[in-house]
Structures are given as structure tokens and as C-alpha cells.
């Protein structure tokens, strides 16, 4: 009986969750953070672009599984106006830096802080991926493991919107 319950518990939570923010949604709060490479990343510098804001951590296996897609999308859609930004919940920059360099992350990665997390509604589980439209509004929020096709479609939709 315990085994059955354990299996049930294990199977129950291998699902994605998507919360699509309704129209009239909030403007993405601006932030300035130091990247793991020592430079600064400011959200408002990417005004006019479609932003994929990824809250992740090196101890989070599903987070690390998503990143190769993000690297590929940055390459494929960067010229069309996509900008991926990674915000790590690691306690220090070192593990994020090591991972980023090992996998070849091609977009800014910074350490998130409590202030930014709170302004984005609280990051109480990872991964969390937010799609920010060209006008700066948050149009979609994905909590937990995401179907890559679904997220990519969202980005393509937003990239087609006029600048």
C-alpha cells in the first residue's frame, strides 16, 4: 500500500503549469543587477524587445534542462528582437557561473535578489519563466516545467507584434 501511494505521489507531479496573465497585466518591474561576469544588466535597456525572463537555479534539474532551448532560441530569434535574461536563485555566483560557462549560455545571467523576486510577485518555486512583450507588459508566466513548444509559440507570437 505504501508503495502504491509512493508511486501515485511520484506520478502526480510531473506536469507543467502555465498561468497566462490576463490583458491589462502589469508592467514588468525594472531592475538592475550584476551579472555573473561582473557587468550590469538593466531590464529597461531592452525596451522594445521581447524578453524571456528565466528564474532558475543550478540545483534545479528542470531549470537546467530548459536552458539549452533558451540558448538555441537566443541564437535563432535574437535578430528578431528576442532577449533572454537568466536570474539565478543560487546563493552565490560561482555555481551559476560555472554552469553557464560549461553549457555556453549566450545571454545575461545575474543573481536574483529578494527585492526583484518580490516585485515579480514572489518566486516561491523554480523554474519560473515570464514572457515580456515589446511594450514591457508581462503577457505570460510559466511556473514549473514548461512544454518547450508552448513557450516557443508564445515567444514567436510576441515577436510578430509591432515594435
Amino acid at each position, binding site marked *: 500500500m*505504501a508503495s502504491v*501511494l509512493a508511486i501515485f*505521489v511520484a506520478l502526480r507531479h510531473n506536469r507543467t503549469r502555465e498561468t497566462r496573465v490576463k490583458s491589462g497585466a502589469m508592467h514588468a518591474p525594472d531592475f538592475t543587477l550584476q551579472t555573473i561576469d561582473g557587468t550590469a544588466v538593466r531590464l529597461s535597456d531592452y525596451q522594445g524587445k521581447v524578453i524571456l525572463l528565466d528564474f532558475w537555479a543550478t540545483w534545479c534539474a*528542470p531549470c537546467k534542462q530548459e536552458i539549452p532551448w533558451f540558448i538555441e532560441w537566443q541564437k535563432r530569434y535574437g535578430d528578431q528582437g528576442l532577449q533572454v535574461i537568466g536570474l539565478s536563485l543560487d*546563493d552565490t555566483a560561482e555555481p551559476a557561473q560555472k554552469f553557464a560557462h560549461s553549457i555556453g549560455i549566450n545571454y545575461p545571467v545575474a543573481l536574483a535578489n529578494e527585492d526583484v523576486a518580490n516585485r515579480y510577485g514572489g*518566486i516561491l518555486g523554480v523554474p519560473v519563466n515570464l514572457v515580456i512583450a515589446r511594450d514591457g507588459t508581462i503577457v505570460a508566466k510559466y511556473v514549473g516545467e514548461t512544454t518547450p513548444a508552448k513557450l516557443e509559440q508564445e515567444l514567436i507570437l510576441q515577436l510578430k507584434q509591432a515594435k
Partner: protein
Amino acid sequence: MRATNSKSVLTRIVSVAFLLSFSHTLHAQWSQSQPQLATMLSSSVLIQPAELAQTLRAGKNKPLIFNVGPRMMYVQAHIPGAEFIGAGSDPDTITRLKTRVWSLPKKSAIVLYCGCCPWDRCPNVAPAYTTLQKLGFTNVKVLYIAENLGADWVYKGYPTASGNQ
């Protein structure tokens, strides 16, 4: 001829023994490098959020609560009274945990929790639990958080605090 055969057999035995030992070492190293996921925990050691919330609200027989998740999440929201230990998948956290419980009676009621990610992906609670188990603690429960701390605790309106401890 007999001496040559014996030597050949002995050589083969030594080779096989060496290969077995080598593969055992490789397997042990591989096992250690794999994260211990929450799903390895027996359901008998789990406590549901509603039950823990009820215990906290009753205000009696409250267990020691150790947060073995990331600090960034702890400071945003944690169970009131929970002590931050650190992400259980970090060896430094296990060292801190051992130090913290060193003087505690082995029957102390302890609840461990994380909430970083879906239960079947959490790498933090199982290492902490097995550490306490190996130290002889017999009254340890792990808070079952199905999706994450937000969905399964905070947004359900269960008792929550924020900030550093």
C-alpha cells in the same frame, strides 16, 4: 604444463577480481554523484501541509522545523519558526545540519521542508532526511510539497513569515 595452466587460471582470477572491484568503485562513485530525489522517501515519513498547518495553529506540540531549501526562497516566505539550514543538496548544508542537531535528543520531533520545485524533482529534502536517519533520529517527518512552496503552502493561506531568521 600444469604449472603454466595454474598460472593462467590464477591470472584470470586476479583479472576478474580486479575488474569487479573497479566496476564496484565506479558504480559507487556514480551513485554518489546522482542527486537523492524526494521520491526516494517512504510515504510513511511524509506530513501533509494541512496537517502541519493545523499543528502550528493549535500552538501545542510544535516540532522543530528546518528549512533545507534555498535562502532566496526562505527570505521571501517561510513557515514561522522554521530555521534556515540551507539547500540539502549542498554538502555544507549537511555539515550545518549535523552541527545543529548534535545536542538534540534522538526522539525530537523534527519536520524538514524545501518547496523549491515539484516533489519528484526536489534534490534537497532526501539528503537531509537520510542524514538525520543515520544519526539515529526517529521522529523526523518531511513536509510533502507537491509543486512548490507558493502553490502548496503560501497561496493556500497557511502560516507564513518572511525575512531572515
